[in-house]
Structures are given as structure tokens and as C-alpha cells.
């Protein structure tokens, strides 16, 4: 079910009304049922996958957690009876049992993810290897279903498992409550990837109807629809035209395409998250924020702290830290320092971990070389900016521009340009074509290339571009206002008629100027398949 389908809006309406009509005790079980219905409508076969992940993770975590509690209790009482070495051995023994269960559960579920998402990618690569050795008869592809949102719910479940294993919190001991955590329908399609200790605080609580919370949620949903329908889905037409016809649209148009895509992806993805968070909010549930005005970042590292935040922190907490804090890395660190000197040596482990993280991030986004190269591109950019830090420090000691508006603007433009260039991998068919198109920006752009007809040829009229432009202005204005606090709170403080005009205006603008219905092909959320 697309967020922007009548079916979804009808589903939401029914869930919302029932949620507040039924006894409060029934609210969370009801949400579980609704989530499973939501998933069932998408494809009944998906249910098997999510159920398997739910059950294995639930029991895996529960056994670990129960063992921990039991051992800790026993250990406290009997600590005195053992010598120090014996205590250590006991702890290690206990730990190794937990570790086995943990790894089995982790690998099993990541295995499902890997098999469903990457089998055909692996086969394709083996085949091209075979072809390189003159073997034309490759392995045939297998027909696998990829359950909707599998990357998101698997990561969310594994985050929970790791946290339990690390003793961050105890396991949930109600299977159905845990099932709701995994399947909560607003975030099933495209995240955010919530943490258990975060989402569980409001997910199972009883919520009574609160006008302010509900209206704030509705406002957030409306804002999401505005971004998605008015801006993203409209400019998408031009993006697709540019990508599809690389002979016509190269040079400057490849650049325009990258810029349009930056706008499209931002409006689509943040709009979708707005809808998710807004839907949860109408039911009194707090889903963590996934974006903080990422295009205003002063460098790429900061950008990744502000774009798709829950994914970034997931990779940091569960991949980057465990790898870089591992025994192996500590040893490597010592060795490389001894060999390469302190300054260079200490970077080796960080960069190696970072490389692995970005490779994984790339492949998580999609089973293709485009995404892998995109991920590694991010790694390279971050590494360069890290290495350039001394240079910038020197630069700022000589030239006093830091903190000025011009410098801030330069940083923001730089961030947007770098990210948009990297994202070209996301657009074009394969890696060589992406490089070719990126190169054409520098080799083939010329003023003579520019003409208005080419833009109209992308399937949008002048009016369409005007709508996108005004939509973008609204987006930027809202972002600027947001820097000093929640925009909805600010509007809430205004006089009632003004409030009415703002929200009704936004509603009518979405209704009339939204690119939906017959004549516009409804596009899937771009992040949907990840």
C-alpha cells in the first residue's frame, strides 16, 4: 500500500477511529493486528518472513536475557566462594553460551536478509566472472520474493538483539508486544529504524484522545503529503526523463538532473518520514526523528549525522564501533603505530572500520555495484575531508572567514554539491555510465546547450516548474524557521484565523497542485525496497 494511495488514507482513518474507540487496554494489540493486516494486504507471503524474524529474535533475546538475569543473581550470591581467576572463568563460560545463542540468532536473520536481497546479485557477479574466463553458461537467476521493508525490520530487530546481548536493557517478555515493535505499520515501509528502548516508551502505553497531539500529528501528515505530492512526485518526471535519455540530457542537464534528484529525494524521503511520524503521533506514539535539515550541514560527516539519522546511528553503534573497538583493531592499531608512526598509524584502524561500514551501507541500500560505489564514494569524501582538517585549520588562521555568512553558504553549497554528485550513482543504470555523465558535466556543459524547450521536453510544463519552485521556497522557509524551534508550535501560538489559513492553504495546495491520480503515475517511495 503506497502512503499516497486512497487505500492507505482509508486504512489510516479506520485505524485512527477504532484506536480511540476501543478500550485503552486493547490499543496496542489492536495496532499489532492493524500492522499485520497492512502487511497482509501488501502480500500475504511477507507475513511468513516477518513472523520468523519476530519469533527467532524474541526467543533468542529472551533466552539471553533470562540467562543473564539468572547468572547475575547467582553470581552476586556466590561470588565470595570463588577465587578471582575462577570468577573470571565462570563469567567467560557464561558469556560464551550467550554469545553462541546471540550469534546463531543474528546470523540466521541476517542470512534471510542476505539470501532474499543478494542472491541474484551474487549470481550475476559469478556469471560475469565466468564469462570473463570464457564460460558463457552462467547460473540461472532464482525467483525470490523480497518482503517489503525487510531491511528496516531486520535491522530494527537485530539492534534490539544486540542491545539485549550487551545488557543495555532486558528482553521484552511478551511475544506480541515484541511483534508490534517489529511490525509497527507506519514505519514498516521505509523506516525510521527505531530503537527498542526508545519506541517502547510510548508504543505500549494507553493513550487517550488529546486534541493537540492529534492535530499536531495531522499537521505533520499533511506536511509530508505536501512535500511528497506537490514537490517530489512532480519533479520526479523530469528526473526520470533526464536519466532515461542520456544522449540528449548530458552536460549541464546531467547537473540539473542531479540537482532535481537532490530535491526529489529529500522531499520524498522526508515527506514519507513526516507521514510516518505524524501517523504515530496521532496515536500518541513517539517515533524518533530521522532528519535534521541535512542540506544545511557544513560538511559530509555532519550531513550523515542529520540525514537518515536512525540508519547512520545504527551503522555506527552496531558495525563501526564493534569493529573499531575489537581486539583485532586494537592490535592492528598498535602494529600500525609501530610501523607507520603515531600520526599515520592511528588512522589505519579508523579508516579500515569506516571502509567496511560504508561498503555495508552501500550494499544495504541496494544489491548493485552502483550502491557499493556510492557507499565507497562517501567513504573517500569523508576520508579526504578528515585529512584536509589541518589545512582548513591553517586556512582559518590566515583568512578570517569562519562564522561569516559567506563561509556558511559556501559550506552548505559544497555539501549539497558533493552529496548530489555521489547520488548520481543512485540514478544511472550502471557505474561506467554514471562516471560518463558526471564527466560530461565538465566536458560538455555550455551555455548554448541551454534552452527552455529541453526542460519542457522532460514532460513538465512551465507551470509545473513554477509549482516546484514555489514548493521549494516554502520548504526552505520552513527549514529556516525550524532552526529556532518547532514550526507547528510556532503556528499553534498564532491567532486562530491565521492558523486556519495556513493549514487550510497547505491542504488545498496539496489537493490541487499535488501530482497524483490519473495523468500522473504514482511513484513508489524511493526508499521502499531497501
Amino acid at each position, binding site marked *: 500500500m503506497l502512503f499516497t494511495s*486512497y487505500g492507505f488514507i482509508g486504512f489510516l482513518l479506520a485505524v485512527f477511529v477504532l484506536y480511540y474507540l476501543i478500550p485503552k487496554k486493547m490499543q496496542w494489540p489492536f495496532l499489532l493486528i492493524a500492522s499485520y493486516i497492512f502487511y497482509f494486504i501488501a502480500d500475504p507471503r511477507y507475513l511468513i518472513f516477518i513472523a520468523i524474524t519476530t519469533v527467532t529474535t524474541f526467543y533468542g533475546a529472551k533466552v539471553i536475557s533470562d540467562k543473564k538475569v539468572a547468572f547475575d543473581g547467582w553470581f552476586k550470591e556466590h561470588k565470595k566462594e570463588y577465587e578471582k581467576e575462577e570468577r573470571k572463568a565462570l563469567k567467560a563460560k557464561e558469556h560464551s553460551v550467550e554469545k553462541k545463542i546471540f550469534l546463531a540468532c543474528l546470523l540466521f536473520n541476517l542470512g534471510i536478509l542476505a539470501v532474499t536481497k543478494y542472491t541474484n546479485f551474487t549470481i550475476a557477479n559469478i556469471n560475469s566472472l565466468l564469462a570473463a574466463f570464457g564460460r558463457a553458461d552462467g547460473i540461472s537467476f532464482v525467483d525470490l520474493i523480497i518482503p517489503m521493508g525487510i531491511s528496516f525490520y531486520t535491522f530494527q530487530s537485530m539492534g534490539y538483539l544486540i542491545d539485549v546481548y550487551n545488557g543495555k536493557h532486558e528482553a521484552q517478555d511478551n511475544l506480541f508486544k515484541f511483534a508490534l515493535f517489529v511490525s509497527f505499520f507506519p514505519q514498516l515501509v521505509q523506516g525510521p529504524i527505531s530503537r527498542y528502548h526508545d519506541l517502547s516508551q510510548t508504543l505500549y502505553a494507553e493513550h487517550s484522545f488529546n486534541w493537540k497531539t492529534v492535530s499536531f500529528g495531522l499537521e505533520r501528515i499533511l506536511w509530508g503529503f505536501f512535500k511528497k505530492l506537490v514537490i517530489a512526485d512532480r519533479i520526479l518526471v523530469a528526473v526520470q526523463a533526464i536519466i532515461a535519455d542520456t544522449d540528449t540530457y548530458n552536460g549541464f542537464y546531467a547537473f540539473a538532473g542531479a540537482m532535481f534528484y537532490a530535491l526529489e529525494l529529500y522531499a520524498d524521503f522526508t515527506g514519507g518520514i513526516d507521514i510516518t511520524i505524524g501517523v504515530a503521533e496521532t496515536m500518541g506514539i513517539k517515533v524518533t526523528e530521522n532528519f535534521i535539515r541535512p542540506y544545511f550541514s557544513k560538511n559530509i560527516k555532519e550531513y550523515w549525522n542529520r540525514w537518515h539519522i536512525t540508519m547512520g546511528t545504527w551503522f555506527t553503534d552496531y558495525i563501526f564501533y564493534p569493529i573499531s573497538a575489537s581486539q583485532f583493531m586494537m592490535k592492528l592499531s598498535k602494529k600500525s603505530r609501530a610501523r607507520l608512526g603515531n600520526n599515520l598509524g592511528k588512522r589505519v584502524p579508523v579508516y579500515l572500520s569506516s571502509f567496511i561500514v560504508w561498503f555495508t551501507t552501500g550494499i544495504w541500500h541496494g544489491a548493485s555495484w552502483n550502491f557499493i560505489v556510492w557507499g565507497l564514494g562517501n567513504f573517500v569524501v569523508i576520508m579526504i575531508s578528515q585529512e584536509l582538517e589541518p589545512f582548513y585549520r591553517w586556512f582559518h588562521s590566515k583568512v578570517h572567514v569562519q562564522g561569516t555568512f559567506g563561509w556558511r553558504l559556501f559550506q552548505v553549497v559544497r555539501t549539497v554539491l558533493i552529496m548530489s554528485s555521489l547520488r548520481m550513482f543512485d540514478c544511472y543504470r550502471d557505474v561506467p555510465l554514471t562516471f560518463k555523465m558526471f564527466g560530461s558535466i565538465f566536458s560538455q556543459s555550455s551555455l548554448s546547450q541551454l534552452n527552455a524547450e529541453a526542460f519542457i521536453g522532460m514532460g513538465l510544463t512551465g507551470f509545473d516548474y513554477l509549482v516546484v519552485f514555489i514548493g521549494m521556497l516554502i520548504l526552505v522557509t520552513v527549514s529556516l524557521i525550524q532552526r529556532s524551534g518547532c514550526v507547528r508550535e510556532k503556528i499553534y501560538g498564532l491567532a486562530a484565523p491565521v492558523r486556519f489559513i495556513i493549514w487550510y492553504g497547505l*491542504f*488545498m495546495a496539496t*489537493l*490541487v*497542485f499535488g*501530482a497524483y*491520480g*490519473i495523468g500522473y503515475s504514482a511513484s513508489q517511495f524511493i526508499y521502499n525496497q531497501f
Partner: protein
Amino acid sequence: MKKFIAIILSLVIALTGIFLASKLLEPKYMSGILEGAMIQEYYDDPTDHNVVFIGDCELYENISPVYLWENYGINSYIRGSAQQLIWQSYYLAEETVKMEHPDVIVFNVLSMKYNEPQNEAYNRMTLDGMKWSSSKVNSINASMTDEENFIEYVFPILRYHSRWSDLSADDFKYMFHRDKVSFNGYYMRVDVKAAEDVPEGRPLADYQFGDNSYYYLDKLTKLCKDNDVKLVLVKAPTLYPYWYDEWDQQIKDYASANGLDYINFLELQDELGLDWSQDTYDGGLHLNLAGAEKLSDYVGNMLTTEYGIPDRRDESALNEYWDKVIERYNAEIDRQTTNLKLYGTVHGPEEQ
């Protein structure tokens, strides 16, 4: 209390805004494609018709109720629309017998060839104009293509919102009213484009009409029987789309099995006196005014003699109504003839 009033007021303003926007954005069909405006015209006129024609362009471009009135005193109406599908015809008939009691319903059988929903734009032209009733709801459900949603019929703004970029003066002018575009359902054309070289229809893999088509033909038959309305099946004399003998036989069989009259005007071209070099405006697809009046003469004669449809020219109220239609009818003939002389087309420059 104050808060309550504020909420009511906001709701009223909000709904009014949506209503006005819908009215502004929905297509008006006042120039160019007039067919979209025809269905809703029916509701404005007096309803005690003796004959109601229901069907596609083979009726509404080929038969002139004005001629029937002037020459036979028959009070008739054509509930026609472009590519009207048989279930749409059925539900229009269902609605008609709820509103009035005609002696005869004439149905053109060409639409039997469509067993499934066809085209969103044509659906809209037939369905949007209908008043809300169970007939409309059922007709929508029977007609929707895969890309359509029922809610878009309830709130037309969901369908037509993207017209914001091609709004014209017409959209403002006709927000709340429409001009008449037809003459009791008749769509007039006076120009001539001769039919030449009529090719045989391409052989089909299967000539059998679909189950769905028969289902609604059965329903139509039953509806007329139950309501004591005489159902007459016709096939218009126009040359395209091709009417296969295999199709004709099926209708003949159906008519005789159900005790209905079926008249295939293709076989009566000589009696009608049709001249394909003069009586069509688009090479044989549709008749022009001259052709339509020839067919109307035959039909009027038939309705009077064989079905005993009364001459009602002595009723003053009806006379008054028809005088107005005739006046518009003649004005439209003048307008089209003048345009034809001046510009070589019936459309004036303002319609281009």
C-alpha cells in the same frame, strides 16, 4: 460555545472552498467536446417522454427528436453519450423508468461488442452528469477501469485537480450553470464528408458477444418487461464501426427468443433513402443533419404506425417547451451553416 461556533465556521469555510474548487476544476464541455455535457441536460426538461432512446453516438448523432416532434408530434429524448457501454445504458434506463414512464425505450446494440470497461475519459462523460442514485453508484462500479477509484467520482476534485494549469474563461463562466448543447439529446452537425470505399470488417477471432454484455441485455429486457415498457433494439445505419453478420445473427436470435423487435437499419438503407455522399459528416461514422432527418422520418413513421405513439402537438405546455428547442435548433443550423461558408468548418473561430 465560542469554540463550537469557530469549529462550525471553519468547517463551513473549508467545505465551501473545496466545493468551489471542484466546480471550477471540473471540465465544462461547453466547447469542443460537447458530449460530456449531454447526460446532465436530461434532468432540466419535462420528463413525460413517450419514447426514450438510450445508447451511444449511433443514436445521439443519428436521430433528431426535434424532427420527430415537428413531423409526428412524438415527445422523445435521447439519453446518449460517447461510447456508452451497455451497463451504462442499463443503469440510465433504470434511472429513466424511476423518473418517468415511457411507452418505448429504443436501445442501439453496437455496445454489445464491449464486454469490459474501456476508457476512463468516456466513463467520465457518461457518469459525471448523472444525478446521485443507486443507478449511478452501480453504473460507476460496473464501469471503472483499473486506474480509477470510486472516491474520485464522489469528489471530482481528486480526478480533475490537475486541470489547474489549463483553466480557461469557460471554467469560470460555467462554474454554476451550463448552456444547452444538445436538442433533447441530439448532437447536430450540418457539414458533409462523403463516405467512400467502405472496407469489409477484419475477421475476428471470436464473434460471440461477451457474457457481461448479455447479462446487462437480459437485465434491460427484464427491466422493460417489469415496467411495462416496450423495448426496441436497433442498429443504426452508419457504416463504421463495422457490424458483422455474426453479430447481427446473435441479436436476431436474442430478439426472437425474448419477443423483442430488432430493426437493423443497415439493411434498410434504400428505404431510408440515405446517400452516403451527402448524409454523413465524417465519412460514414455518423450521420449529419440531413441523414439524421431521413432516419428520423422513418423512425417517426414506424413509432406512430407500429407502436401507436400519440401525436401530442395539441398539448400547449409541450408546444411551449418544444418551440424553445426548435428555436435553438434553427439557430444552431444557421450558426453552423454560416461558419461553414465563412471558415470551411462548422466550428467558429472562438471554438478552435
